């Protein structure tokens, strides 16, 4: 064999060796990285994405981690995740308990996004769905203890739509009302002002990723009252007017307040109350 051919053979051999070593190393590394990437797709529930993110997967395919949204956020709400934080590296998020979204009308973060990862079709901030507020701890929320608070309700930028106050009977005292904040997913943007303002040490109302917070009714379900409205009449049997047999003086307001007691009865108050008033 001539030395020239030998040399070509040797260099070819070295080239193939190099290629296969590189390919082998890269493939091993790639498998590890691929597995890691699957894990990093799960966003911790305390990290809320900026407005205009519908789906975490779509967002991660589009965001180039430039931080222009962070720069244009006037309230320093948004941050880029750093190495060591459990959020896809370099992507924008906010922690509602620290600094919530102020829901700017001109949505500067969405305007700043060069890729469209924050959906440019979002032009009305009320349509944003960054997450969903959930009154997650009814044991700690003082409204459930019968105390007046309603701070979350009062700071809500979409008050009376996203959070309303439902009154109900206070069983513990027997005579007071509970003023219970109720979140409505139809209007909650997930801005997190309620979580930020919650007066507890650890907020009882928290913004969670919508996917985590929201249930979904089986698609085959039909709600009779809705179907009745749609049809304009009862679909099964014709409605009969209810008749009641009630004690003297009490009324029942059908489709209204329900049971109505007469204004005063001899045993309306407890004996102790009567004693305190000095009426005995």
């Amino acid at each position, binding site marked *: 064999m001539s030395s020239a051919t030998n040399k070509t053979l040797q260099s070819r051999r070295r080239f193939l060796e*190099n290629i296969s070593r590189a390919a082998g190393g890269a493939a091993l590394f790639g498998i590890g990285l691929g597995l890691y990437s*699957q894990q990093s797709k799960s966003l911790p529930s305390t990290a809320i994405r900026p407005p205009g993110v519908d789906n975490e997967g779509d967002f991660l395919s589009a965001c180039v*981690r430039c931080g222009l949204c962070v720069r244009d956020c006037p309230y320093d709400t948004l941050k880029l995740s750093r190495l060591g934080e459990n959020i896809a590296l370099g992507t924008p998020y906010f922690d509602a308990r620290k600094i919530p979204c102020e829901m700017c009308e001109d949505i500067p973060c969405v305007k700043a996004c060069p890729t469209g990862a924050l959906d440019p079709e979002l032009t009305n901030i009320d349509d944003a769905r960054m997450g969903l507020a959930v009154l997650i701890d009814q044991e700690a929320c003082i409204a459930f203890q019968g105390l007046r608070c309603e701070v979350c309700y009062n700071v809500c930028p979409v008050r009376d739509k996203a959070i309303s106050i439902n009154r109900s009977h206070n069983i513990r005292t027997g005579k007071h009302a509970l003023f219970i904040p109720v979140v409505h997913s139809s209007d909650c943007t997930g801005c997190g002002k309620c979580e930020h303002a919650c007066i507890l040490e650890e907020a009882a109302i928290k913004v969670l990723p919508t996917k985590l917070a929201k249930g979904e009714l089986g698609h085959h379900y039909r709600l009779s009252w809705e179907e009745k409205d749609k049809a304009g009449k009862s679909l099964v049997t014709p409605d009969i007017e209810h008749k009641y047999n009630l004690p003297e003086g009490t009324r029942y307001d059908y489709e209204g307040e329900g049971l109505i007691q007469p204004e005063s009865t001899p045993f309306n108050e407890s004996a102790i109350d009567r004693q305190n008033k000095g009426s005995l």
Partner: protein
Amino acid sequence: MAKNINKVIGQDAVIKKGWLLAHKWLLLRRFSQLSIIGLFLLGPVSGIWLIKGNMSSSLILDTLSLTDPFVFLQTLFTGYLPEMTVISGAVIVALFYLIVGGRVYCSWVCPINIVTDAADWLRRLLKVKTSLNFSRMGRYGLLVISLVLASVSGMLVWELVNPVTMIQREIVFAMGYSWLFIIGIFILDAFVSRRAWCGHLCPMGAFYSLLGRVSIIKVNAINRDSCNDCMDCFAVCPEPQVIKPALKGNVSSSPVINSGNCTNCARCIDVCAENVFTIKHRFIN
């Protein structure tokens, strides 16, 4: 090279040309790298926003949008077609590097280069001999892997671990643990393998070297006849394999350093006492 082992590299050039001329390109490069990082930091530090964002994508004077073509390519591979802003920004940057040289990004822009140059300087100073040999093809493997993973998983997988964009971003925004990567790369380059990161592993450099294959501005061993075999250029070059075909090729071969892996750092021009190298466009032979 063995007989020159105790010689200080570039000493002849310093004696012949003076210290400043023998470090001209190195100083220009450091100035370029530091001023780019400085411009990005100017906004957050002083509130003067000449440039916003980071090297992945940025906005200059609130008008011109630039995007890194490698990051853009990964986005395309996820199956997502970004807004026009990013597409035009990536095209502008790619065209720029197609003119000045693909890996000009590596040697004139990327701040990691300062780290790996420092590691190589320490390596020469301490005469570190250990060298784990791994293939310079590894970076192309990683380039392929980064694009395949992007398309399989539908997300920018490489950007989860890319030390280059990570460090650039955390310098400009807020520092997380990416300084560990800086130290890691320094140790790797200084004590494990020469030019391990930029010359063997970094897929970003591999991507830019593909642009470098056709880019216009090139280093040219135009006076190769006056080469006195001091080997200083080989000693300083981050990709020494690219010099040989141009410098030591036969008479009919082109003196242009054609390899896409040449970073146009021009350190060879600095250290050559005989003025063998110069910067020209690739069409001069």
